[in-house]
């Protein structure tokens, strides 16, 4: 198992390296980094100095090595808009995004899990159908449209919730609902499927035949086994949450990573864009790695199941 985990870690590092390489390539393809990464009105002498300072006058392979080493050192360039290191600009927004994302995941689990589990237990009844109808609605509703409907209802009609900002807990309600809705639907549907799969297993029938109390069958035999795929699923959906966070934060003016990214793209503040994209890649790779580790700890068969060549 240790070997598998070591391989996973190695692959995660390789994935990150490829992401950095892609950013490097895109940066070179789009033109001279000295003109792309510096504001338009920079005097030529400053551009020249910048080129020398960052080694942009050296051959490409050397530039590439310098770039990667610089990144691992945390040197991401200076934001034009704020005149301070881009890494700093991005990192100080990270806690806000983590708060929003964490609350959305909690919201989705608290709502989606019970919905999916009850739907599985009441398989093929009216409850099952209604619950799954809601689930499909949840993840088909584009987050930006849901956000606008929520603002229309709660901010403009009822006037009970603020539509923008991040000062109080009330500011968190609509962004979390927006970000969590799609995930809730997906989790409900996935929980139902994996619960149905587990309920069909021989060991559940054996436990029932043995006369184990029905609630106990579900709590101690079915749930823990259904939890593994749900956890894996959550790991896969981190990307969805981050994508949703960009939209949600932009609409509700929530000062997180996504909003910084969209603002920076609008202002062509490329060092910040680069820092934000690399940070997002890092979060994705790390969360996938963590899920792999937890999975390996929970399920000894993990190596076989997750192997690409199954």
């Amino acid at each position, binding site marked *: 198992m240790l070997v598998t985990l070591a391989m996973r870690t190695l692959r995660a590092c390789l994935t990150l390296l490829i*992401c950095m390489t892609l950013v490097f390539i*895109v940066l070179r393809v789009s033109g001279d980094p000295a003109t792309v990464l510096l504001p338009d009105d920079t005097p030529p002498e400053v551009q020249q100095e910048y080129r020398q300072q960052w080694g942009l006058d050296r051959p490409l392979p050397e530039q590439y090595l310098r770039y990667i080493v610089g990144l691992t050192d945390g040197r991401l360039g200076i934001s034009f808009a704020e005149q301070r290191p881009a890494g700093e600009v991005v990192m100080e927004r990270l806690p806000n995004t983590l708060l929003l994302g964490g609350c959305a995941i909690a919201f989705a689990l608290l709502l989606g899990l019970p919905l999916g589990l009850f739907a599985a237990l009441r398989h093929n009844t009216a409850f099952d159908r209604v619950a799954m109808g809601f689930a499909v609605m949840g993840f088909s509703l584009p987050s930006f449209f849901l956000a606008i409907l929520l603002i*229309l209802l709660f901010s403009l009609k009822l006037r009970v919730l603020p539509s923008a900002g991040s000062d109080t807990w009330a500011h968190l309600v609509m962004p979390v609902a927006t970000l969590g809705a799609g995930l809730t639907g997906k989790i409900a549907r996935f929980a139902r499927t994996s619960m149905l799969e587990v309920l069909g297993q021989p060991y559940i029938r054996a436990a029932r035949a043995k006369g184990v109390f029905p609630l106990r069958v579900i709590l101690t035999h079915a749930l823990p086994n259904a939890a593994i795929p749900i956890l894996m699923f959550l790991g896969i959906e981190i990307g969805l949450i981050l994508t949703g966070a960009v939209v949600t934060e932009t*609409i509700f003016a929530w000062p997180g990573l996504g909003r910084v990214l969209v603002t920076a793209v609008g202002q062509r503040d*490329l060092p910040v*864009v680069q820092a934000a994209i690399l940070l997002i890649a890092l979060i994705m790779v790390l969360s996938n790695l963590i899920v792999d580790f937890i999975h390996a700890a929970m399920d000894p068969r993990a190596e076989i199941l997750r192997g690409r060549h199954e």
Partner: protein
Amino acid sequence: MTFVQSADASSVPHRAMRMPLVIKVCAGFLVLMALVALLAPLLTPYTYSQQNLLKRLSPPVFMGGDWAYPLGTDNLGRDMLTRLVYGVRTSISIALLGTFIGAAFGTMLGYIASRRRGLVDEAIMMMVDVQAALPAFFVAIACVAFVGNALWVFILLVSLEGWERYTRLVRGLVISEHGKPYVQAMLALGASRWRTDLLHVLPNISAALVVQATITFPWTILLETTLSFLGLGVQPPETSLGQMLGSGRQYLLQAAWIAVIPGLTIFLTTLSMSLFGDWLRDRLDPSMRGR
């Protein structure tokens, strides 16, 4: 996955393909959207950028507006119905092209990976892992920031959504098909690799590919509309559903219909496609049922 050969599927085709009412409604809506996209210029007397500043922000008929502008007008007095029709045309065309390019690219790579194992296979699967680790949305945002967004760049970026799924799927399917007796028999009879793969293996795995396309198509629409909504996709004066919604955001208080009507259209399209895709998947590919 081998439904083409399976006897029980062909003996009860009618029962297997019978549509529940919900699915009929969904299919009907999708056909309607396709027709709207195709016939856009014939459907309205206005063009999508034609302004009538005297009639700015006039409400739709069901909110007390007049029949000259059935769905009202926007902040520049442009007819919402016309803009909606052209928005559907743009969004559906981009999503269809994007889905097709992504599917073709992913399928090709998956096929290459399955035929040339070893280093090529490893390299392709590594790319798949990287794409799976970094959502297409962020790759698209980064490219728009660095390269800018000409329409063709944008279509290519949208096609990034989900290509890696086709690669994984096709690679697995082709490897498993090549282990089957009919392929062995074809090759033993002297058929070329190409002939076997194009005329026999491809048709046998096409059901799974169609199902995958019904899954990725709504994602592609969502990627396009999301990027356009954020102002990073289709640029004015061109219009798309996401761009309409994004520009309507500032007028929520006075003229909510500018945002709600395109939003509802996006929602109904993705919902119909998801439900229709689920139904199709249950019919064509029972092994994926309930996933």
